[in-house]
């Protein structure tokens, strides 16, 4: 049995990698993917702690996280497509059209 803290550390590493991705990438779809990565790292943390405590509450939270992530991915990608029609680019710098 691996100690729970190993799982948590793994989750931390994945989270950090996702954060780096958000900061470094310019392609907005890849940025999105990095965000999904961060969410999954959090899911891992919840599941590990749920196991540690022997409760199902952590897993329920993960269920909801997945739901919301799905909704968010759908809407976000729809926005990207709509924006792409206006300005045919996925470069985050060029897409900053809401900013003056």
């Amino acid at each position, binding site marked *: 049995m691996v100690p729970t803290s190993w799982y948590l550390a793994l989750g931390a590493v994945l989270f950090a990698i996702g*954060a780096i991705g*958000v*900061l470094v990438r310019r392609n907005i779809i890849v940025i999105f993917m990095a965000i999904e990565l961060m969410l999954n790292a959090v899911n891992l943390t919840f599941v590990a702690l749920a196991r540690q405590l022997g409760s199902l509450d952590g897993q329920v939270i993960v269920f909801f996280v997945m739901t919301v992530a799905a909704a968010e991915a759908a809407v976000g990608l729809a926005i990207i497509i709509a924006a792409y029609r206006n300005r045919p680019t996925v470069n*985050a*710098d060029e897409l900053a059209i809401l*900013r003056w």
Partner: protein
Amino acid sequence: MHEGEVIQTAVLRLIPALPLLGFLLAVVTGARARRLAVVAAPALVGLAFAIALSAVVTLTHAAAGARLVDAVYPWMVAGPFRADLAFRLDALSSVMVLIVTGVGFLIHVYSVGYMAHDDDVPRFFAYLNLFMFAMLLLVLADNLLVLFIGWEGVGLCSYLLIGFWYDKDENAAAGKKAFVVNRVGDMGFVLGLLLLAWSTADAHGALSLDIAHIEAHADALAGGTATAVALLLLVGAAGKSAQLPLYVWLPDAMAGPTPVSALIHAATMVTAGIYMIARLHVVFLASPAALEVVAIVGAATALFAATIALVQTDIKKVLAYSTVSQLGFMVLALGVGAFSTAIFHVMTHAFFKAQLFLGAGSVIHGMSGEQDVRQMGGLRQKMPVTWWTFLVGTLAIAGAPGFAGFFSKDEILAHTWQGGHYVLWAVGALTAGLTAFYMFRLLFLTFTGELRASEEVAHHVHESPISMTLPLVVLAVLSLVGGWVGLPEGWLWGPAFDRFLAPVTGHPHVAEGGGGVELALMLVATTLAVAGAALAYVFYVRLPGLPMVLAWRLKPAYDLLSGKYWVDELYDALFVRTYVRLSNALWRFDQTVIDGAVNGAATAVVVNGQLWRYVQDGNVQHYALVFLGGAVVLLSYYLVR
């Protein structure tokens, strides 16, 4: 000596108030109602003269040594020091107030004609009335602080009036010069006043600059303090009354309109220093050393200025240096203890010098603005009134027997001799001779011979209007009879003037040498005057080529005199240049260091902002980076715990 009765009155305040009213009137309505200002100004001064006259008459009916006092209101009480706004009319100030308002009135009337063509007349009369107000404050003040206000006020008006035609730079510069040089004198004056107040504190430590208070506590002035105070006051008087070394502003002040020169720089303002010393004679009497200095300064100035006047070619400049010289005589009189005699000469000088200046103004007016004597000549045919009155004035200043200047000048010289100051007497006598010479020179060059001006100017020469000639006549009459109030001892009513002033100024502190000595001295002085006049006659009527030959032969001397001993140039190199260099250095310091610091602070803020600009650039990922950084920092806190 001074425990006369004090009569309270509310009338004295009207005398300075009326010209002040005239000033306000001219300022407020002058632009729109020119006629009002032009008529009101002289009228108000005339009214002030009438009130002053009635007040003086009231005074003469009272016991000898009495004085009228008008306490207007308690002005300031500051700890041990107290000063009230109050006026006094005693023998001394009555003489001064009558001169100021009387001669002032005549000059106001004259100005109506003289300044008729000028657009800026209301401003002129406004300044003139303001001057009258300040001068009257000065002579009527019961308190040295009020006197000082008037003192400063006349200096201000002098500046305003000298630079009246300010569109010409040299006029404005002359005004500034007058003000700055006066300032130097005023500094000494203020220091003197402070030291005086401090050293005449009474038993309770109360300080006051009331004249009565100072006279009462004058014996508290020990030798050294008295000398210091007296010398400081002398500095102030030297500035205001154009003595060495602070006389340099007066010749330049001729840039102002001629009525200004007549009123301010001949009859009234320049006599303020004389008045001040006469008023505070108790201080000077406490320091014989200071008195000696005063006498020397006066005599030296008199001779110095007379020598310069010998070769001047501008009609007003000659009269300006003559004024400096005559003021030197007055100061000499003060220095030998003959205070009332000095005031006597103030009065006679006011008459004939105002007359001469107004006459010069008439000449300039008739010559279409020409002031160079070398362009004049033969004016007596075309300007008879001016010629006759100018002649009277010249006789008066030269000391022709019977005329005003004769008695006052002789009295000064007599007292000088009788006081044992033989060298000073010689200087004075020589100056008297020179005075006669240069004044007659001026007279001959201007009025006799052939007119040397251009055709156009010659065509326009005309006598002045009655508004100008009437004051000339009045002043000429005064120059004739004005001296008869002070005859030598034993002649008719004797020195009535001195007797009138004695309760205030004391009897001249000299041994009366008796009629014989005085007669002899009178004879010597008259001889010198006649010699001077005769020499001028020879030089400028009989042998007109002679002066030029002499000037060429004695060129170094001539250049020295003509260049006014290069005093202005010396002051410029010594003081003005240094000050300008210092000012420039400070300006550079201000620009680089102080402005640099201020601008540098601003620049620092801007640069700081520019550096921080990148933190909030609208780029969300940059913000996220900052979040990350923040999270890292927070976690590190937990790590180390």
